[in-house]
């Protein structure tokens, strides 16, 4: 961490001296519940910038504390005061919806390392908006397809009662069909005894849940203690490395879908995982991989064009001419990824459980909203 900090400071100092050519503003969640997502995006991003050795890029980072109005205030500051060329970093869909539309309409590029709310992929898409991670429904839809193939018949599905939760269950049902039972929980809920009782009483043969951050930790621990032993499935958001560390052995055996895995076999990924571990002393999560890819996409475009030449820079981004840690990577017509969605299983690791790649759920997945996008 220290080494990188020094490198970044040096880069910053040099950059200021040489009048930084490119200014990138990063708005991300570094405090409060779920801040490990923002921290990993930032660390992955800064790792790629440091590895590029470019000193003419200035990255300004601010914490949005997961509040939409704070994010909006920061974005106004970056755009109006600091004249940034590119914005990135937002983790949560509700924050993205607060910031992205006005920013991209104003001509600033926004490259999303995480959130992919459906309006931005469909009716409200914009030529200056790119998503490097996924569209919100993607991982859930892939899991629906995987579970159907695996012969699951009567899943019990649950998600928080808010739009990203609704999107998750919609995504799941788009590929699986009708589940045995679906319920919505409260956002930020920490006690799942009532839901687990219903799962037990429902006669379902499996459980699919989308509960990111602390909600997933609580649910898994309580589920494991409840004596219900139905198999559990979910997107990678419910089972990142940090959550697995907190949940412990309760998560063993769980299947989850992700667009990336740290043991995915390609040279870019191997180098990324090794350097990330060396730099920060921990295994990267999918969020770190997304931050790393986002930075490399931007770097690849900067090789070809300057953001001031918007059309050329946009074309360079669309080409996506960079080595992704996911292997093959391309943009769909709505600037969202076309990519394989993988399946991972939680296995015993070194001191705490970890994810192991077991297969591919969907190849060359495209999101469901591209047709609604006219740009």
């Amino acid at each position, binding site marked *: 961490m220290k080494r990188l900090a020094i490198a970044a400071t040096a880069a910053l100092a040099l950059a200021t001296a040489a009048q930084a050519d490119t200014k990138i503003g990063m708005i991300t969640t*570094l*405090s409060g519940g779920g801040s490990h997502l923002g921290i990993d995006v930032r660390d992955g991003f800064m790792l790629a910038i440091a590895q590029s050795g470019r000193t003419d890029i200035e990255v300004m980072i*601010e*914490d949005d504390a997961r*509040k*939409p*109005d704070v994010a*909006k*205030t920061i974005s*106004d*500051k970056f755009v*109006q*005061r600091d004249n940034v060329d590119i914005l990135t970093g937002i983790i949560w*869909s*509700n924050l993205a*919806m*607060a910031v992205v*539309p*006005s920013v991209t*309409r104003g001509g600033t590029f926004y490259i999303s390392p995480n959130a992919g*709310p459906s309006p931005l992929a469909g009716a409200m898409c914009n030529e200056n908006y790119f998503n490097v991670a996924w569209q919100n429904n993607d991982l859930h839809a892939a899991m629906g397809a995987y579970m159907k193939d695996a012969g699951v018949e009567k899943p019990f599905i649950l998600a*928080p*009662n*808010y*739009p*990203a939760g*609704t999107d998750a269950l919609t995504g799941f049902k788009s590929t699986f069909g009708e589940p045995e039972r679906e319920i919505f929980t*409260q*956002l930020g809920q920490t006690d799942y005894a009532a839901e687990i009782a219903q799962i037990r009483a429902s006669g379902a043969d499996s459980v699919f849940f989308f509960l990111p951050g602390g909600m997933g930790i609580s649910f898994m621990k309580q589920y494991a203690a409840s004596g219900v032993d139905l198999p559990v499935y979910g997107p990678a958001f419910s089972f990142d490395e940090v959550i697995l560390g907190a949940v412990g052995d309760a998560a063993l055996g769980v299947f989850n879908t992700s667009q990336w895995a740290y043991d995915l076999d390609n040279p870019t990924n191997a180098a990324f995982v090794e350097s990330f571990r060396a730099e920060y002393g921990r295994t990267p999560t999918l969020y770190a991989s997304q931050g790393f890819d986002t930075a490399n996409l931007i770097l690849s475009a900067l090789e070809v064009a300057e953001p001031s030449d918007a059309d050329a820079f946009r074309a360079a981004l669309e080409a996506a001419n960079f080595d992704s840690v996911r292997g093959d990577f391309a943009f769909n017509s709505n600037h969202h990824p076309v990519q394989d969605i993988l399946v991972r299983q939680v296995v015993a690791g070194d001191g705490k459980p970890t994810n192991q790649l077991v297969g591919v759920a969907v190849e060359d997945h495209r999101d469901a909203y591209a047709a609604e996008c006219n740009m």
Partner: protein
Amino acid sequence: MRGREGWINGALAAALLIVPLALHLAGEVYYVNLASRVVIVALAAVGLNLALGYGGMVSFGHAAFFGIGGYVAGISAHHAILGTSFLGLSTTTEMPLIWLISVLLAGVVALAIGAISLRTKGVYFIMITLAFAQMLYYFAISFPAYGGEDGLPIYVRNTFPGLNTFDPITFYGICVVALFACLFLTARIMGSRFGAALDMAHLSETRLATAGIAPFNIRLTAFVISAMMTALAGALFADLNGFVSPSMMSWHRSGEIMVIVILGGVGRLWGPVAGAIAFVLLETFLGGLTERWGLFLGLILLGTVLFARGGIMGLIAGKARHD
């Protein structure tokens, strides 16, 4: 308005008029918008100050009214832009009409909340206003039609006849006029017989009762007017940010509005303005300096409560009339 406090109030008013204009001429769009934020937050606190400072009603739920104003602006713009209707009514993007609806709706809600809450006193009043705000907060989160937790963006700022609201300095002008109007209204209210009765209801209920005036009605009226002002601030806040979300109604927000009133000086006409300037500037610049600004804000706040009870106005202008 007398003596040193009068001078300070004059200085604050002059600063609100001159500084943003200077920033505008210097081309600092960001700081002009920051000034709008200060003014709007101040307006919300001016509203609370009427209930809390003058009426002694410690409402821990004013964020609910702030949110109501915000959601009226957001929902109205949402339907108008999509060309859909709200319960069969067509909606508007005209600010004056939006303000009118915000203020009336908040007034009706405040009348209901106040009618129940004002039956209680002290801690119970604090807690029941908090509970009502939490109720609306959870409703906003769970009701999916207007974005729920994700919030509702306003893609095109609402309009004002004859003005270009997109222009930051024009929008600032609108906000500052609203603030001055509410300050003027507060001064007029407190100078009237009603204001004297409210003062009395706060200080000595029995004397008011012997004068044949029901303290309950006086308090309820003040509570409703207070909520209306805060709702107006909410509507402006939504347009400033281009966004409304349930966080406008969270209990942290109620706490923040309260903090601004205290920081500035309770029951001082211009106290909320001083408090808002201090709070927003601290938030912006401490937040820029350190990730741990919450710690420093907490320490500053604690210091204010423990050692500077009159807030900023108390420090600079001396004791308030009542102490």
